[in-house]
């Protein structure tokens, strides 16, 4: 039982990270109907920017909460630049082209980003000294002590705060309304005087910023990153988005949590080696039985 609760806590933490990345996939899919294959690599760039800023601020000796806030903002800003540029260079010229063209372009972009980071930052793994230590301990009398580290609390709380801000942004502001309108009908939205290109750019910026937060959490949580982390994390986050129903924002978060939990429980109870297989198998099974995911809208084909 204690072991189960420990896995649950770990799974929720991991799920928060996947959920934040999944939002980027689901938003882009919702608005322009393409799988932004390079999104996982944007997450990886976010992790690198966060790592670099942690090292710089680590030398200054500022208090931890201020460092966290600064790193968060810096990572979001710089990673958003990447998201924006990738959209402008690789996807915007292909709008209105046949379906597979943006996907291939995104694949190419993903290869470019990975190797670009490999060249500029080196291929070796980057370790970081842990900033957080300690945690709350439960069930002290039993054999297995459940530990909820402060870092896990930080990750989950930060995710909840960001989700709150994000939900407000999408449901209550003009920007969110424009964004939802573009999802429904781009031509009509343009006719009503909304700058569709700008709205799409902003979608990419928001998605990349959330991915960069996930990257920062990843650096803190695992303490090691390399240029290749974006691939697996990206696929799993995409799985999460599909699981929750692609195009649905609460679905992305739900899917992220589910994938995080499935992966942790699989690793804890079944086998550690095959934990990635679990995520992919879930994807295949879900698509067969719920082609639209849990919270997705059914897709009506029109002639």
């Amino acid at each position, binding site marked *: 039982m204690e072991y189960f609760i420990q896995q649950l806590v770990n799974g929720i933490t991991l799920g928060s990270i996947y959920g934040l990345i999944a939002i980027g996939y689901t938003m882009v899919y919702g608005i322009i109907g393409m799988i932004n294959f390079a999104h996982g690599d944007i997450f990886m760039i976010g992790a690198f920017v966060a790592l670099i800023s942690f090292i710089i601020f680590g030398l200054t000796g500022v208090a931890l909460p201020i460092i966290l806030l600064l790193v968060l903002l810096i990572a979001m800003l710089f990673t958003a630049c990447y998201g924006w540029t990738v959209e402008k260079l690789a996807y915007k010229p292909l709008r209105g082209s046949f379906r597979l063209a943006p996907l291939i372009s995104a694949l190419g972009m993903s290869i470019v980003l990975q190797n670009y980071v490999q060249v500029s930052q080196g291929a070796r793994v980057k*370790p970081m000294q842990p900033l957080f230590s300690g945690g709350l301990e439960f069930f002290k009398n039993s054999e297995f002590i459940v530990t909820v580290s402060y870092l896990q609390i930080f990750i989950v709380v930060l995710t909840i705060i960001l989700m709150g801000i994000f939900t407000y942004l999408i449901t209550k502001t003009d920007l969110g309304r424009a964004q939802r309108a573009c999802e429904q009908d781009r031509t009509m939205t343009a006719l009503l005087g909304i700058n569709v290109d700008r709205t799409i750019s902003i979608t990419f910026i928001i998605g990349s910023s959330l991915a960069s937060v996930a990257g920062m959490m990843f650096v803190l949580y695992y303490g090691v990153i390399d240029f290749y982390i974006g691939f697996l994390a990206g696929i799993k986050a995409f799985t999460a988005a599909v699981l929750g129903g692609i195009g649905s924002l609460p679905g992305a978060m739900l899917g992220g949590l589910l994938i995080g939990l499935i992966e942790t429980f699989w690793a804890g109870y079944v086998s550690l080696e095959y934990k990635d297989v679990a995520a992919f198998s879930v994807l295949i099974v879900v698509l067969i039985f719920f082609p639209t995911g849990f919270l997705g809208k059914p897709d009506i084909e029109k002639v």
Partner: protein
Amino acid sequence: MEKKDIIQSFKDSLFTGLIALALFGPIVGLRTVSKGEGLFITPQWGIVFLLVGLCILGRFLININSARRTEFKIFSTLSSKLSSITEDKAKHFAITGILFAVVFPFLPFTDRYFMDVAIMILTYIMLGWGLNIVVGLAGLLDLGYVAFYAVGAYSYALIATTFGWSFWICLPLAGVFAAFFGILLGFPVLRLRGDYLAIVTLGFGEIIRIILINWYEVTNGPDGITGIPRPSFFGLPFKRSPDEGEISFHLFFNLEYSTMHRIIFLYYLILVLALITNYFTLKIRKLPVGRAWEALREDEIACKSLGVNPTNTKLTAFAIGAMFGGFAGSFFATRQAFISPESFTFIESAIIVAIVVLGGMGSQTGVVLASIFLIGITEMFRDLEQYRMIAFGGAMVLIMVFKPKGILANRKPTILMHGDKK
């Protein structure tokens, strides 16, 4: 050009520079280096300023030129000329190409390195042609094609090392195994729409790789399988000193022993295999099932209402594509004599898909041109090991942006109704 425009484009270039600074500043400018216990930062501002300068200059030049857009025109006229030439003289082109490929090993400048590159390009051409059945004809994006390549290679290696059967028995078996995996995967997932299918096949490719790494008892894990039998020339091995009672190739034909014999044989082997794939594709396009593939690609709903069973039709395309992937895999295994999961990563799938899409989906000649182009690029950048994948990915993006339909766009149906010539 007016003065106002120049000022405008100057401002725009400066903005580009600012963005470039934000992009390159942290990632290129602040390199993290491990020293002893921790990580330290080594600034590299020189490169950053160079890159930012290049971006500003490039943007400025593009802005000034944008009114004319000559550079884009050159590119598109070139490729449309290429398209029309290859279409008009498709037969001549194909015959010249094949003749060149046949005499290639005996040309004066051909050495070991050229032969190795040529074999590699031919392997990719064969894979491209195999995948072209799935992507180009049936319109199903398969990002896990390397899984079938891996299944072919591993089944060849396992059968050949366990039972000691010859290449010519193992080759069809490997193809059958790969086709079986194609059906296994295809059956549940082929009902999905295009991009979902892409991701599921990608996931399948990764599953196969993870299983290959972890199933130690059978696949020998990350260490791979060694000592895969080399192919023999219809029973005559390519050995300097053959075993007792065996006659080797050079003794039988009274030749001086040379390692090139085996290479040349491998070259012709893959050439024949690739041409069989091509011939098969060209023929099956004209059969009912081939027409059904193309029809499905164009309009699935219309097909359904005309009584074509989409799942079965797609499944045949998937299985046949997988089978050719399996053939290529067994060739790879016998050529290398060693295989490990390292050779079957996602990047291989991406390269094969890139070859098909960049060549122009459905165009057989396009696959050849794209293979030569992409593998050639990576070979040219071989000395700059780290940069070649950047060049490769960049080429994918650029070709898509300027020529989204591929180098030779060929989505014309093979069969048209009477009188409907154009």
